[in-house]
């Protein structure tokens, strides 16, 4: 059958292009802002903890009032890695959903319930950590045993996020039902992919919490299978980092083009890369466990191969970004090989911050490939190289992109304008962040390569020459970390300024459109049942044998240990 003459229903491509935009209601704005408040308060507390850490590790500072270094480390990890990220992401995604597919009244109520459950859980976990009853860092570390309230709090955060995920699925489903022959809005499609991945991934932590940690910490179970708890954690732990990254990619694919005055490079490619992320983000968690004794080397290697697959959609993304910049520049008349660089709006913080985030992902991604490289992982595993790595990927690529979003999202939500002076402060903030992170991350990478351990308070390790060398890099980290803290204070100031002191007005919610003659998006991109099926099959393939092995060939279980973390 000829495509051109076929009725719309039988065509294998979607007819519509672009996205119609809705207005966010007052209540929707309030919902998103609530998430933003939690995110920015977390940024400040977590950043303060980071400052204290680098100061302690410089060897010239002791924590007052008998506060334990590992309490601070736990707060830093949990509040930035779980709270800041999850709250910013779900808030941002809710804004995207409101803008593209909209909320019914009932959906919005459920979204508020999700927010409430997440916040209650977060407060319970935070208090437990702050009183020193959960110095277990954010990877839980069984058989170290925290107070049960910590595990219950974390579980509630996850459950709250699930409520939100189902609201997003419902919104998307209802929109598709109303628009059967149209392709879904690109950003809504991306949100649904990310929440699907999150839902499937968090089943791992939820299982570990409900079946292992909570009954064990309450005393209903005497022992715990340590390796199983670790494997379930990392089943979640790797997709977690993609859960952070994908919202940044949403902004890169579908928002940045609008900010630079261009169009989406390819709607289909953007969707396809997200589908690949859904497939390959989860069945790869063993690459965090390569040096663990109880897992089989063949299955470790298989998951290394799958990990390398997830590099491909990032290669696609890199190409799309440069192509967007080049095409836009050429259209504006900038010729030559790199002339298009000149047209980019360098003095617009909505562009500059995410752009530096993109640049940071080049060394960040390269380092990530090293980390996943099977035996080479022994060189860097648990050294501070890894900390340097995720301060590039999470704390620079993701966080700077989130800041870049905040500069327009928050004024949009509060009905104010992004002023010139805020923009200027934002640029200073971005530069401070970049400089501080460069100093801190480079010194972490080098110190890691020469063996310096991560997750450690200051120690001279008996005065070895190596430890002295590490000390020099830790001084550099203290310098970088201090600059970063100044940048955080500035960011919080900007946040407050944008909410309360900027002039009233209407700030644009930038959503990029496709080119008029863009290639239509094929219908197969929305074959959701197939995408979910492939995802599950890959997970079953990668994890069934390792998990059966961990359960069937388990050593005697471990009794709880609370004294090593000062929780007895």
């Amino acid at each position: 059958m000829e495509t051109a003459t076929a009725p719309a229903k039988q065509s294998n491509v979607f007819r519509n292009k672009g996205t119609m935009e809705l207005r966010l209601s007052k209540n929707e704005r309030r919902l998103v802002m609530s998430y933003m408040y939690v995110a920015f308060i977390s940024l400040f507390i977590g950043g303060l903890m980071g400052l204290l850490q680098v100061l302690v590790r410089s060897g010239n500072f002791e924590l007052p009032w008998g506060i334990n270094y590992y309490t601070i480390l736990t707060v830093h990890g949990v509040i930035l890695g779980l709270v800041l990220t999850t709250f910013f992401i779900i808030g941002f995604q809710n804004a995207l959903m409101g803008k593209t597919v909209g909320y019914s009244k009932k959906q919005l109520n459920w979204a508020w319930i999700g927010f409430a459950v997440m916040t209650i859980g977060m407060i319970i976990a935070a208090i437990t950590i702050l009183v020193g009853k959960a110095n277990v860092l954010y990877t839980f570390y069984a058989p170290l045993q925290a107070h049960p309230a910590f595990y219950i709090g974390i579980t509630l955060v996850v459950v709250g996020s699930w409520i939100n995920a189902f609201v997003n699925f419902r919104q998307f489903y209802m929109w598709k039902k109303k628009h059967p022959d149209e392709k879904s809005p690109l950003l809504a499609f991306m949100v649904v992919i990310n929440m699907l991945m999150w839902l499937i991934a968090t089943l791992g932590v939820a299982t570990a919490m409900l079946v292992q940690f909570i009954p064990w910490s309450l005393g209903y179970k005497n022992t715990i299978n340590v390796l199983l708890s670790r494997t379930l954690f990392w089943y979640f732990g790797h997709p977690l980092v993609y859960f952070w990254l994908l919202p940044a990619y949403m902004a890169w694919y579908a928002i940045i083009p609008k900010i630079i005055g261009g169009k989406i490079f390819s709607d289909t490619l953007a969707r396809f890369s997200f589908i690949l992320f859904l497939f390959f983000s989860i069945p790869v968690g063993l690459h965090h466990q390569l040096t663990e004794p109880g897992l089989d080397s063949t299955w470790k290697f298989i998951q290394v191969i799958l990990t390398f697959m997830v590099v491909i959609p990032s290669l696609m993304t890199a190409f799309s970004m440069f192509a967007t910049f080049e095409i836009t520049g050429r259209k504006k008349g900038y010729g030559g090989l790199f002339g298009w660089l000149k047209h980019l709006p360098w003095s617009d913080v909505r562009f500059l911050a995410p752009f530096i985030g993109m640049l940071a992902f080049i060394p960040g991604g390269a380092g990530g490939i090293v980390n996943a490289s099977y035996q080479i992982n022994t060189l860097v595993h648990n050294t501070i190289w890894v900390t340097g790595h995720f301060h590039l990927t999470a704390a620079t690529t993701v966080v700077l992109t989130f800041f870049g979003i905040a500069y327009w999202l928050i004024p949009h939500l509060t009905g104010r304008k992004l002023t010139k002076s805020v923009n200027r402060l934002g640029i200073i903030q971005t530069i401070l962040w970049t400089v501080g992170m460069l100093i801190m991350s480079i010194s972490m990478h080098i110190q890691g390569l020469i063996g310096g351990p991560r997750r450690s308070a200051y120690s001279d390790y008996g005065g070895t020459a190596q430890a002295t060398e590490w000390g020099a890099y830790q001084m550099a980290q203290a310098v970088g970390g201090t600059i970063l803290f100044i940048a955080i204070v500035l960011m919080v100031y900007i946040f407050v300024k944008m909410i309360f002191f900027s002039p009233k007005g209407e700030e644009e919610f930038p959503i990029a459109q496709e080119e008029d003659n863009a290639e239509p998006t094929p219908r197969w991109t929305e074959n959701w049942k197939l995408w979910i099926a492939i995802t599950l099959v890959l997970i079953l393939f990668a994890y069934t044998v390792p998990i059966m092995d961990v359960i069937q060939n388990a050593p005697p279980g471990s009794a709880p240990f609370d004294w090593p973390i000062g929780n007895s």
Partner: protein
Amino acid sequence: MNTEKRKQLKSSQESEPNLKGTLISVSVLGVVILVTWFGVLMLYLSR
């Protein structure tokens, strides 16, 4: 391949945007990955 199809193909290639700068940029990215990876591999082998 018949001539008409070939013509179509040709015209679709002509309408492709000029992405030389992009190709060079991603190549630089590729080189960063290669240098990092082999550098760390060498360090691993030397230990």
